[in-house]
């Protein structure tokens, strides 16, 4: 029983650590080759190959993704990251596209709302391709038509 409990405890303790180990494939798309400026998975430049080898070494040692990112930023600067970090001023890069998207959606919504409000009047105005007649004119027209029919 004790052995089973010890095994279960060891599984619980080692489980999250093993899950936290990234893979080289996961990481290759997250870093930029400093010479060709594309992500590592799209580059076969010598510098990219060397960084891939470095990633493999660090993954083998089960370093976390954050740790590896910090190490590469210390070597190459923040430009090595394929996406800006979610901190400080860099948040702008994440938020501005959303602001633009929601702003554009709001503008489109206002236009659609205004267009749909004016649409029934215009639709009525364009009934049979003619404008509605003035009531007085309509009465006069009826009288004229009645007289014409009487003849």
């Amino acid at each position, binding site marked *: 029983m004790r052995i089973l409990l010890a095994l279960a405890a060891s599984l619980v303790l080692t489980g999250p650590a093993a899950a936290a180990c990234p893979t080289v494939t996961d990481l290759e798309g997250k870093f930029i080759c*400093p010479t060709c400026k594309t992500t590592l998975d799209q580059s076969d430049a010598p*510098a990219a190959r*060397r960084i891939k080898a470095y990633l493999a070494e660090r993954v083998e040692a089960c370093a976390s993704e954050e740790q590896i990112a910090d190490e590469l930023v210390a*070597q190459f*600067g923040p430009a090595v990251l394929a996406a800006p970090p979610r901190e400080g001023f860099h948040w702008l890069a994440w938020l501005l596209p959303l602001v633009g998207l929601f702003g554009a959606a709001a503008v489109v919504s206002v236009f659609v709302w205004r267009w749909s409000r004016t649409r029934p009047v215009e639709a009525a105005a364009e009934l049979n391709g003619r404008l509605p007649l003035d009531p007085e004119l309509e009465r006069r027209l009826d009288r004229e038509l009645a007289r014409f029919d009487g003849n």
Partner: protein
Amino acid sequence: MAARLKVGAQVLAVALVTGLFALLVWKVASQDEGASRKLQRGETPAAPAFTLDRLDRPGKLSLAAYHGRPVVLNFWASWCVPCKEEAPLLEEVWRKHRGDGLVVVGVDINDLRGDARRFARQNRMSYPLGFDGLGETSTDYGLTGVPETFFVARSGRLVCDRLQAGVHLEANRDRFDECVQEVLSA
């Protein structure tokens, strides 16, 4: 009210587009073409200054520290095969002319610090080495790859030529010797 809002939105849109266009023009106009272009046109531009972490020992490596001395400035990386092949020649020139005041400065770019240190040790590079992982100096100098070698006169200006590819290669070897002599006498 609606008409005023519409005009306001139009003015804002035009101002935004004009602003972005002005930013583009400013960026293009203020973009430095790189020292190497000027050198190739026969000018002697000032060598772009840099201060980097030293690779061969703790501390900083600044080009300004060698003002008044002729400098052979070599850009390299540990993953670059020709860099390995030309390293013995650069070491030889450094040892031969250091008594004349000449300094060979190696700048390691786009590299991993550990790899670069190993490379320098394996190739017995004893001249001053700086580490520029991000390769910022490569933009200032207008590099197209590694290795590339420049010659900085005592005045701090780039002279003679910009040698692309290994200085040990037949195509570059004579020109390299000429430039070393020129920078020593400039």
